[in-house]
C-alpha cells in the first residue's frame, strides 16, 4: 500500500536528493545530487535500499513530518536531535513510524546536512535519470523546490527489506580540505599562494548548495588577464577580482569566468557538503598518497 509524507515544517532547506545526474554538464545541467553522498549512502543502507535511492536532504534545521502510513526511516549525516512522537531516537538506525506518527528533526548541532531515508520510494519527477532537486532550474524533486509546510509527498509501497543500522560518519571540524592547483593557479601572487594553505578561512552566511563564499584574507592576482568562460566543476576555489574565495559546491554553474585557483580532491568533495556558515576551513596541498 502506498503512503505519503505530510510536511509540517520544511526546516531551512529540505529537498529530495539522490546521487545526482552525471554526464549533462555540457548541456548546462550540473550533476547535483546529495551534497554529502557518504551520508546518503548510509541512510539507504539502513533501509536496505539501493545506493541510488532518493532521500530527503535537510540543511541546518530538519523538517517535521507526519506519516500517513506505517513507514520505516533512518536519519544520517549532520548531528541533530531526532524525535519520533516526542521520543528521542538514534541516528544511523532504522525505525518504524506508525501511521499518524510525527518525526521531528531538530536544529543541526554539528555539520550542515542530514538525510532521511525511507523503506518506500519517494514518488516525484525525475530528469536525466535523477530525482535530485536543482532549485535554480526547478528540476527534479517536489516541484523542483525545497519542501514547505503543507506539502504532501507520495511514497510507494514498502520495500519489505530488513532495516538495520550503519556506522556513523565522523564529521570533523575544522574542515581540512586537500586541494590541487587549479588551471589558473599561476595567476595568484606569491603571497596569495602562501596564504591559500597558511590562512584560516570560514564559510560566510552566503552558503548554499551552489557555493560558499569564504571569509578570510584577500588573495591577490598577479595578472589581470581577461578570463573567457570555461568549465566550472564542484570543489573549485574560484577567485574573483575582489580576492575572496568562492568555493563551488554540488549545484554550481557548469561554466564560469573566474580564476580557478585550486580544486578540492574528489575524496574530500563529500566533506564540503557539511560546511556550515562560520565553520573554520583550512586548505592543504594533496600529496600523491592522498589521491
Amino acid at each position, binding site marked *: 500500500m502506498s503512503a505519503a509524507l505530510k510536511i509540517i515544517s520544511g526546516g531551512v532547506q529540505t529537498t529530495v536528493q539522490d546521487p545526482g545526474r552525471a554526464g549533462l554538464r555540457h548541456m548546462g545541467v550540473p550533476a547535483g545530487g546529495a551534497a554529502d553522498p557518504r551520508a546518503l549512502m548510509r541512510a539507504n543502507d539502513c533501509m536496505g535500499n539501493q545506493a541510488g535511492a532518493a532521500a530527503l536532504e535537510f540543511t541546518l534545521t530538519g523538517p517535521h513530518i507526519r506519516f500517513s502510513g506505517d513507514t520505516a526511516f533512518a536519519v544520517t549525516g549532520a548531528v541533530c536531535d531526532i524525535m519520533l512522537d516526542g521520543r528521542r531516537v538514534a541516528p544511523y538506525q532504522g525505525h518504524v513510524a506508525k501511521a499518524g506518527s510525527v518525526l521531528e528533526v531538530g536544529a543541526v548541532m554539528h555539520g550542515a546536512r542530514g538525510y532521511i531515508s525511507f523503506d518506500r520510494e519517494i514518488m516525484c519527477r525525475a530528469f536525466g535519470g535523477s530525482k535530485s532537486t536543482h532549485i535554480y532550474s526547478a528540476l527534479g524533486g517536489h516541484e523542483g523546490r525545497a519542501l514547505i509546510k503543507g506539502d504532501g509527498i507520495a511514497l510507494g509501497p514498502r520495500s519489505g527489506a530488513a532495516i538495520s543500522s550503519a556506522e556513523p560518519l565522523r564529521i570533523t571540524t575544522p574542515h581540512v580540505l586537500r586541494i*590541487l592547483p587549479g*588551471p589558473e593557479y599561476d595567476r595568484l601572487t606569491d603571497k596569495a599562494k602562501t596564504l591559500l594553505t597558511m590562512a584560516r578561512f570560514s564559510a560566510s552566511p552566503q552558503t548554499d548548495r551552489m557555493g560558499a563564499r569564504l571569509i578570510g584574507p584577500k588573495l591577490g592576482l598577479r595578472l589581470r588577464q581577461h578570463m573567457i568562460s570555461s*568549465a566550472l566543476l564542484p570543489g573549485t576555489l574560484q577567485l574573483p577580482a575582489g580576492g575572496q574565495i568562492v568555493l563551488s559546491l554540488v549545484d554550481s554553474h557548469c561554466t564560469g569566468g573566474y580564476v580557478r585557483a585550486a580544486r578540492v580532491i574528489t575524496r574530500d568533495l563529500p566533506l564540503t557538503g557539511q560546511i556550515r556558515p562560520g565553520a573554520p576551513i583550512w586548505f592543504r596541498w594533496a600529496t600523491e598518497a592522498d589521491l
Partner: protein
Amino acid sequence: MSAYSLQSYGDDALLIEFQDDQSGSLTGYVQSLRACGLFSDVIPAYRSITVQFDPKISRETDVRAAITAALAHPVNVTAGPIIKVPVYYSGPDLTAAAKMLGLSRQALIKAHSAPVYDVAFLGFLPGFTFLSGLPRALSLPRHDTPRIRVGAGSVGIAGDQTGIYALPSPGGWQILGRTPWRLFRPEASEPFRFRAGDRLAFTPITKSEYGALSEHDE
C-alpha cells in the same frame, strides 16, 4: 590540428585549452573525445574542452595519452542547416545599448540579426546558449549590478559574446530582445532546443508575432 595545452583540473578532470579562437569548430574534437569512452563528461566552452574521468578507473597518464590521440583525429562534422530563431527586439537594454554603440535601434537590430552564429556551448544553467560570431563592433560591457531576474528566452550581449537565457535567472547581460521559443523543456523527450555545433540566425519579429509564437508562461 591547432595548438593546445593540457592541464590538470583536480584529480578527476583535465582542461584542454586551444591557443587560437576555435569559434564553432570544437565539435569535431568533442565528438572524438566522447568516442574514447573514458569520460563521464566532455564540456566544451569558447576556447577549451574539459573532460571528467573516474580516477578510480583511469590513471591520468593514460587519460592524457587518450586525449592526445583523440585530438589528432577530430571527427569530421558537417554543418547542419541554419536555424532561424525569431526574436522580438524590444529588450530593456536595447535603447541604451544602441546609444552606447552609436547606432540607431534599427541599425543595432539589423547588425545583430545579420550574422550566422555558431552555438559554441551550453552552460551556466540548463540550456543557456552561448554563441560565437558576434561582430566586434557590437561588444558591450556587462551590467555592473546584475538584474535580479532576466526572463527565459532573453537574447543579450556581454563583452564579445552573445547568447540566449534558457531559464529565468539573475543576469548581467545587456538584453536586446526575447525569443518566443522555450530552449529548455525538461518534460519533453528532447529537452534541449540547441546543442553545441548548431548554426543559427536571428529573425526580427513584431510584438504580435511574438504573442502568437510565445511558448513562455509569462
